[in-house]
């Protein structure tokens, strides 16, 4: 078997892999914002549920979370007498969204808390409302602090997409196994190596994007960044 035979088949499985990834990326982001909001602004019951959710997403192995999504969610919707719409792909998207959201919440919360208390005080004393303060002052600074952690969360998400084959979603990993089995498992090393390259490239792209934003957000960076600043105050 050669590369020109195997690669197109794997490439054909990429769109589904990327779709699962992007759904989890976007849905997870909004879940994380929601969970983080309620973990910072304590609301009885809802905040405790948010804590529980984040603790589930962070402490249960991702494979297990996928099984829970695949077997558990149909049971849940059956309770509400909705017909089962869970294909392995949908279950994979949901399971990974939940995982990524919980993980990301624990990137966002510390970033929010890392913004100096004085920034809140200044905005409050000037009469900023809560939303104005978050969107104009605290949020932009928290985003900057969160970016490296976000990059990590993104890379873990990409890795964990490889687990969706356990619930039967036909991503690149599952396709690779099919290809190998068709050839009586003769070319395992080559196939896995190719997979490794594909995943590395995905992570590289994600890392480049995050790094672009890290560099873009300008002067108000960290102490190290100040040292490197070409323009220094001359008092």
């Amino acid at each position, binding site marked *: 078997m050669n590369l020109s035979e195997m690669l197109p088949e794997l490439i054909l499985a990429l769109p589904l892999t990327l779709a699962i990834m992007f759904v989890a990326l976007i849905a997870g982001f909004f879940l994380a914002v929601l969970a983080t909001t309620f973990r910072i602004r304590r609301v009885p019951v809802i905040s405790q549920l948010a804590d529980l959710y984040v603790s589930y997403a962070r402490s249960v192995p991702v494979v297990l979370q996928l099984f829970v999504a695949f077997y558990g969610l149909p049971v849940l919707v059956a309770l509400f007498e909705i017909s089962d719409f869970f294909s392995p792909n949908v279950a994979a998207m949901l399971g990974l969204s939940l995982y990524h959201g919980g993980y990301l919440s624990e990137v966002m919360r510390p970033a929010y808390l890392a913004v100096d208390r004085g920034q809140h005080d*200044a905005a409050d*004393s000037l*009469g*900023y409302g809560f939303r104005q303060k978050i969107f*104009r002052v605290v949020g932009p600074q928290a985003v900057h602090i969160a970016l490296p952690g976000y990059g990590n969360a993104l890379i873990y998400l990409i890795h964990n997409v490889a687990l969706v084959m356990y619930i039967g979603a036909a991503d690149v990993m599952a396709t690779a196994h099919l290809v190998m089995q068709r050839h009586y498992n003769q070319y395992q090393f080559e196939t896995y190596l190719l997979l490794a390259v594909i995943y590395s490239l995905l992570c590289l792209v994600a890392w480049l994007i995050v790094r672009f934003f890290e560099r873009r957000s300008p002067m*108000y960076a960290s102490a190290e960044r*100040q040292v490197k600043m070409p323009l*220094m*105050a001359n*008092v």
Partner: protein
Amino acid sequence: MLELRDIRLSYGNSQILKGVNLSVSRGDVVSIIGPSGTGKTTLLKCINYLARPSSGTIALDQIRMDYRRADKPTVQAIRLRTAMVFQQFNVFKNMSVIQNVMDPLIVVQRKSKEEARQIAVQELERVGLSDKLDMYPSQLSGGQLQRTGIARALAVRPDVMLFDEPTSSLDPELVGEVLKVINDVAASGMTSLLVTHEMQFAKKISNRIVFMDQGVVAAEGSPDEVFDTPSNPRLAQFLKSEVAFQ
């Protein structure tokens, strides 16, 4: 114009403010002095509700509030008419110097961008930062940051300026430039409250000195009365140690 009555505040079991009374007339420059940990800063923060007293009342002209029944609109009304300068500057790190001054005008006061810019340029000129408009906080010295903080506070056109130890976290050689700006502000007739450890400066610019000790106002009077003929033994002792230090 500003009346604080019987302000009490505790953190856990420790009482920080034990019934503080303070009244300030329009145009007054009042310096609050006293040992560390006696609630000077906390008192100042109570005025714009950054610290939340358990009881007491505030009156700022017609705006009146009982801290036991503090409500958002009244707190906001008070915040819009006071402006605070912080010990740690608290300049918004994600904004340039001019954005720091413009942003509250645009966001809170809903002024147009042009008008906000015009006011900001004017106030930044007043504090001597005309050549730093587009610099970011990470590029500025402490003195420049504090002057940005003062410009931002002045730009909202407050009735009362609250200076919370504005020079305490500055290098000695940067203190002068900030004191000069505060002196100009006070001389312009702006009603000001100043928490400070700069005794000579307080004596020079204030028309009244308030000495706080252990959560209460222990003595107050004109600068001459307080500094030259201190009647309260704690005050005398405090002044002696401050002078010895300086």
